[in-house]
């Protein structure tokens, strides 16, 4: 109970500050729209080549996961600014739960991601995506969990490095292989065998497959099981990492 209350206090503070900066909100909402309208049409003529019947049913889930990963990865930059202002230390000197300090921030990131996801899926339906509602619900849920995991990891990284200059290259280094080996924009199956093989080691590829499967209406598959498992594993690991950096005495 106290934990929820403390998380909510932190969350409310974060939301208040974000909403006061409308530019930030608009950019956040615009991102998925731009992807859909500027990149979607390029995929349309290619869809048949990789065996998709509907380009948007293939593309929207990938975009969704990308939003979840990439938007959340940048959450840590705000945290560095807060740390520099002394806010983190001031919060850590209160009796509030260290996990609540992190979770309150994750709630902000997840809410933002949720709104973006709704816009993306809604527009997806508008431009011709076909997907069962329960598939969309499952896909969005997986995305939100993954987003929370990435935001937690980003916060942990931010508190460990405390420097934008260190963090930016690290994030770039992580994002490149994630983007290229997850089949977000194009399916891995159209690549050569060695590339497909290496993508097997990329957890987010399984998650993209699972979300895509959910949108396509196929639930009882092994890739769905893998995707869900990976999402839960990443979420648990990142939450643990994030909490331990907030708890660690020298942060």
């Amino acid at each position: 109970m106290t934990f929820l209350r403390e998380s909510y206090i932190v969350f409310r503070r974060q939301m208040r500050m974000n909403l006061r900066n409308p530019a930030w909100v608009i950019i956040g909402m615009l991102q998925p729209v731009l992807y859909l309208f500027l990149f979607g049409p390029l995929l349309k003529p290619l869809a048949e080549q990789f065996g998709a019947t509907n380009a948007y049913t293939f593309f929207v889930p990938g975009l969704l996961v990308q939003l979840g990963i990439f938007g959340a990865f940048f959450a840590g930059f705000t945290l560095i600014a807060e740390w520099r202002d002394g806010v983190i230390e001031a919060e850590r000197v209160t009796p509030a739960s260290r996990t609540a300090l992190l979770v309150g921030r994750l709630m902000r990131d997840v809410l933002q991601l949720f709104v973006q996801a709704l816009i993306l899926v809604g527009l997806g339906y508008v431009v011709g995506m076909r997907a069962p509602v329960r598939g969309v619900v499952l896909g969005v849920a997986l995305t939100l969990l993954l987003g929370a995991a990435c935001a937690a990891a980003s916060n942990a990284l931010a508190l460990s490095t405390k420097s934008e200059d260190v963090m930016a290259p690290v994030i770039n280094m992580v994002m490149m292989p994630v983007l290229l080996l997850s089949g977000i924009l194009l399916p891995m199956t159209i690549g050569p065998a060695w590339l497909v093989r290496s993508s097997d080691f990329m957890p987010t590829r399984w998650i993209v497959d699972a979300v895509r499967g959910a949108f396509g209406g196929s639930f009882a598959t092994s890739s769905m099981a893998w995707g869900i498992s990976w999402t839960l594993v990443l979420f648990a690991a990142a939450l643990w990492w994030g909490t331990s950096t907030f708890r660690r005495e020298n942060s």
Partner: protein
Amino acid sequence: MIHARGLVQTFHTKAGREKSEVRAVDGVDIDVAEGEVVGFLGPNGAGKTTTLRMLTTLLRPTAGTATVAGFDVVKQAEQVRRSIGYVSQSGSTGGTARAGEEVMDHGMLYGLTSAQAKERGHQLFEQLDLDGMWSRQPKSMSGGQRRRLDIAMGLIHDPTLVFLDEPTTGLDPQARANLWTHIADLRSRRGATVFLTTHYLDEADHLSDRIVVIDHGRIVASDTPDNLKAQVSGDLVDLEIAALEQVSAAAEKVATVVGDAADVEVDAHHVRARVQRAGVVIPGLLRELDQAGITLTSIEVRRPTLDDVFLTLTGRSLRDSA
């Protein structure tokens, strides 16, 4: 209120391939009684902030024990946090947040209801001369106002023990003097015990009942400002001699007063020495100098300051090292 025994904090640093261990705090004992105002004095890098962070549960001691407000800083960290207020050196509010909301949120993290936090917050704003600042952004406040806002944050839950880390660093003299009155109020108006770090001697002198001096991670002295100053033998007398060729003759005269020529310092036109009860000795000394035909350009007598104390204790001036 505070009992620390053998506190140690070691950090590991890496310079190239050489890994080395730095003992930032190296066996510190501190006792602070209820209602005391203690100044924790030392140059930058002496271990002040590190000690403070251990006492406020932000840093786990590498070794040693400490109880703060009756609770163990490691085993009962949460109770310690509930009992203390901490005003950190780096500030405590988001630059783009609103001052009043920051204070309220902070109070609510201590378990206050929204109404309680609001009422307390407004009281504190009034007491700390922050009227009308409630919906201001901290980044648009002056340095002094922001420090007072930090103090309001630290006091929102009415702690009985307040830690202040370099409260006036970077403030202009007027804002400093103003802040001093507010710090003095912490005890006189709320009966709080205050533990403040500073590298300003006048600040420690002005505010504290007792001064604890730390250097290289060790406590080198702990006493009242007056007793510490009494350790420095005598007042500093600084004579400026008009003619260079008369300087050595003047130094001899001063040496007869001090008793030992080794204690007399000669520096170009200046002759300096520490003299017991300078007020009594100087008239005679001046007469003798006059009879010897030595002309003075100026004479300065300085009561011992904490800087002199620091110099005596550590062999270094606080100003040099700060």
